[in-house]
Each structure stands twice: as structure tokens, then as C-alpha cells.
């Protein structure tokens, strides 16, 4: 049986999920490396993490509607969309886990 095309919102928000995941990691690196950005994010909503979360959610929703309007479902099938999402999550995970790797001093645990 031939697969029917994706729904435009499933395709649009799927692509938004992949892109926003990577963007989440990029925002993390920028705010941790740049004191001015970190201070601005703290000042905006009282805590950098709150601001970070609001930015991520807004970007996800906006990009979701933008990508939906671009009719990505005519270019991608569900299988390809899943690949993009998985890669987006992996890239975000690797950047996030890698960025803080220098903080992981397991030698400290040996004292115990």
C-alpha cells in the first residue's frame, strides 16, 4: 500500500522541532559564553532559564506555522521527517553534553 502524504502541520511542526532543538543548544552556548547575553536574559524574565524556555517555545510555534505554510509535506515523508527530528535531538544533546563536559570532574567522586 502506498503511503499518503504527510499533513502540513505534522511536517511543519516536525521540521520546527528539529530546527528548534539545534537552536536551543546554540542559545545555550551563546548565553554561557557571552555575559551580556546572559545578563540580558536574566533581566528579561528574572532568570536566564525562564527566558531561554520562552524563546524556545515561541520559536517552535512560529517556525511551526512558517514551515507549515511552506508545504514541506510535498517534499518530505514521515520517515525523512523522523530522521531530521532524531538528528536535531542528537545534535542538541551532543552540543549540550559536550559543552559542560569540562565541568564533569569524576575525580571528585573518588574522595567518597
Amino acid at each position, binding site marked *: 500500500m502506498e503511503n*499518503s502524504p504527510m499533513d502540513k502541520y505534522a511536517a511543519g511542526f516536525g521540521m520546527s522541532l528539529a530546527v528548534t532543538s539545534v537552536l*536551543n543548544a546554540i542559545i545555550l552556548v551563546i548565553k554561557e559564553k557571552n555575559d551580556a547575553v546572559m545578563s540580558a536574559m536574566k533581566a528579561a524574565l528574572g532568570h536566564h532559564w525562564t527566558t531561554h524556555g520562552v524563546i524556545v517555545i515561541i520559536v517552535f510555534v512560529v517556525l511551526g506555522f512558517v514551515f507549515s505554510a511552506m508545504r514541506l509535506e510535498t517534499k518530505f515523508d514521515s*520517515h525523512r521527517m523522523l530522521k531530521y527530528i532524531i538528528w536535531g535531538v542528537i545534535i542538541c544533546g551532543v552540543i549540550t553534553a559536550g559543552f559542560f563536559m569540562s565541568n564533569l570532574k569524576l575525580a571528585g567522586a573518588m574522595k567518597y
Partner: protein
Amino acid sequence: MFVQGVMMVHVALGVIGIMFAVALFVDVLNVNEGNIERIKKLSLAVAVLIVLAYIIGGYWYVVYYGHDRDIIKAGQWPWAHNYFMEVKEHLFFVMLLLGIYLPIAVYRNAPLMEKEKRCLVLGICALIVVLGFFMEGAGGIIGKGVTMGLMGR
């Protein structure tokens, strides 16, 4: 007590969310006319649980975590905060987005009888479960970090 209660609700919502994602995964593997409605309800439940875990956990993190953080950083396991909390708090955003996207994939990307569409939902569920396990494990390490900090005093 209120602070501990808030934390426990956050953890419980996360655990139930993971369990529902596993249940959804199994239901989608065995999709048929009889369980479509349950699949839809489960996808919504996972989304609601993860969003609530985010809001309640976020409230606890922003309002109360500072005290625990100071204890952890002064203790023998400073990396419990410096690594695990830092990674956890930022990866949680991805889990939140996956949770919000899940019902979109289930409701809008029908019919799930098609293998490719089923794989999309299965993949999202699997990512939620894997990230969820990391969240729970990291949360345990952070809690132990506080204990280690208090033991050293």
C-alpha cells in the same frame, strides 16, 4: 514540606509521562481500529504530563533550587550541579517540544495504519522515553549531590 512536595510532584509527573509514552509506543506498535482512540488520548496525556512537569519543575528550579545548588557546589559532588543539572535543565526543553509535537503527529499525521506514519510516532515516543530516563537519572544524581554536600558539613 511544600518545597519537597513540589519536587515530588515534578518527578511523579515525569515518571508517569514516561510510562504513558511506553504505553503509547506499545499501542502504536499494535495499532488497530479498536485502540485508535486510546492512542489519541495517550498522546494528549503525555503532552499534558510533560508540560506540567516542565511548569512545576521550572517553578521549583527558579524559586527554590538556589539553596540546594549552593550546598551541592560546596560539597564533594559539585559536578552534580555543574554538569548534570546544567545538561538536564537545557535538554528538558527538547523533551518539552517532543511532548508538544507528539499529539500533532498522532492527530494530524493519520492514518497510523501506514508504516511510515507509525514510525514517526514510535520515534517520538522512543526519544521521549530515552530523554526521560536521562532526566530521572540526572535528578537522582542531583539529589545525591545535595546529600553529599550536607554530609561534608
